[in-house]
């Protein structure tokens, strides 16, 4: 917690790369993409399966049903680098092994969140899980773009604070 995690790419940069590559709509070599083409993540160092697994892990660790996949994708994009490649490969291999012990082909093959959470519980004390979870605390919740989904208004000084903007406007007490 003593350092800010820097995101590898902004959401805008991700989207612009996806558009430039023309690889929308389906998951193709080097990409995973939303079926509705709303976003895409390019993968370079790690595999598509690994990125898709990281994305699902992120959702299952901090599930917010009103927060779209693209924000989770931004939060885990930083693992797609050479010096994280081995950590990710080993971690996801262990996660998929835990899934097989639970009767699924892979972690992603478990259809219900409860089933995947039970698999995650098997590995939650590992450095891999704790690294991914810890990174999400800032990687997900410090994205200014997700704040409005939670109602959080962020910076207020430039608006003159809330003295005339509802600091005491509660009306249901």
């Amino acid at each position, binding site marked *: *917690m*003593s*350092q*800010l995690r820097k995101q590898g790419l902004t959401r805008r940069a991700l989207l612009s790369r996806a558009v430039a590559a023309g690889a929308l709509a389906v998951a193709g070599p080097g990409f995973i993409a939303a079926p509705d083409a709303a976003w895409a993540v390019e993968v370079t160092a790690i595999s598509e399966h690994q990125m898709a697994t990281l994305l699902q892990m992120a959702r*299952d*660790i*901090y*599930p*917010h*049903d*009103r927060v779209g996949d693209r924000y989770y994708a931004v939060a885990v994009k930083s693992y797609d680098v050479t010096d994280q490649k081995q950590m990710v490969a080993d971690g996801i291999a262990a996660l998929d092994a835990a899934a097989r012990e639970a009767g699924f082909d892979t972690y992603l093959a478990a259809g219900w969140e409860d089933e995947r*959470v039970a698999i995650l519980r098997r590995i*939650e004390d590992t450095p891999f899980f704790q690294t991914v*979870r810890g990174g999400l*605390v*800032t990687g*997900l*919740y*410090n994205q200014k773009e997700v*704040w409005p989904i*939670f*109602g*959080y*208004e*962020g*910076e*207020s*000084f*430039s608006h*003159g*604070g*809330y*003295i005339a*903007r*509802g*600091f*005491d*406007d*509660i009306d*249901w*007490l």
Partner: protein
Amino acid sequence: MAQAAKFDLNDDNVVVIVGTGAGGGVLANELAQKGVKVVALEAGGRYMPEDYVNDEWESFGQLAWTDPRTTSGDWRVAKDFSGLPAWIVKAVGGTSVHWAGASLRFQDHEWKARTNYGAVEGANLLDWPIDGAEMAPWYDKAEAKLGVTGVGGRARLPGSNNYKVFEKGALAVGYKEVHTGNMAINSADYDGRMACQQTGFCFQGCKWGAKWSSAYTDIPRGEATGNLEVRDHAHVARILHDDSGKVTGVEYFDKDGNLQMQKARIVAVAGNSFESPRLLLNSHSSMFPDGLANRSGQVGRNYMRHTTGSVYATFEHPVRMWRGTTMAGIIRDEARHDPSRGFVGGYELETLSLGLPFMAAFLDPGAWGREFTTALDSYENMAGMWIVGEDMPQADNRVTLSDTADAFGLKVANVNFSDHPNDIAMRDHAYARGQAIYKAVGATRVMPTPPYPSTHNLGTNRMSERPEDGVVNRHGQSHDIPNLFVSDGSQFTSGAAENPTLTIVALAIRQADHIAKEMAAGNV
């Protein structure tokens, strides 16, 4: 404004103050106003209101002390934030940039904790050598300096949404002493500082300057006298002494990393309850093998952090607790000493809010899954309060030198802390009361939240009547070394239930008076 002073490294007539927060910054200005020459050394950089940032993580990166520290003991902070035992500031103005502004006097009985609480097993309680009557005039001066609301004819702040929920619940469960606090945050223009604009982000430095901080009050005023030089990015390594056992100056690393030596007539240590004992311990010598001012063996011991915790609750409808002054709300009914509750001492309940990024980090560190995330989903409908209670001094809750070294090769502080049973009983009581308060206004869910990295860091160089019981005397002066002073919260003999800054400021004003008189009399 007069040009700020520049003093020669060989000027041995200056008072050197280590740290520029509520203790050191006030002491520096008060001495400068009396004509005493002061060099204040500050490890951090210099930021003013225009530099502060309304963004929790970015501000943390700007202001927080993130140099290495290590932790041990059974407190949860050692597990969740092992390298970050405290959330305090490394900057000119110190933690007075970050504090929330709550400015409460100690209650009379709290100055004499050992007498009034009796012997508490496992606690190292001691009476302060001073009392409320002696401190009253110094509190008056401190409240006037800080512009504290609710005293001195100054109006209290208006209540925010978070306060209104808190107040209604408090009254519903029968509490009587409930208001928006005694805050060093202006409710109207005062002393050249403007009124609070209800911006939130009190912890990130007040961009309006409505909250008192030594960074933009005492420090520039001291500099304007021509008697104060502040050197920022000056990291003090050790305090030096002569063969007679008097301190003679300090060695510090300057902003370029070069080791400098500033001579001194007096040295005052005000680096917070971690850095002050660390500096004394790191200054060991053949004459003082256990560190300076440590013939008692008490340096670093009796670390206190207040019994804290938070209670958050969600409601059917929005609260938007982040809007407005963060801590302008208090319930004082539980601050009394009433052992029938199952613990000695008392606690305050104060409004608190965190932004979404810090709420995610601190609501339940390490937690994941829907129990955690559904709470955050209701962030907009959340209200929050903080518990501030007196914790027990314990000899083994202490700051020692770690095997870890900082960027300068200096051993860092290890902070060992474990809760006393009294602390746990008090926290559990406060959790129950806090939850009852919110349920009384229709909370749909209540969350007793564990303590954050410490913001109230006390003890470790405690004040005592007898030299064998503590580190400094009634004036914050070392029992062992007459020209060495401690000027921050580390001199607290006990913690009381109140936020400590007002008492730190009052003690600094009083100490400045003492030092100036002793210098004039030729005694130091």
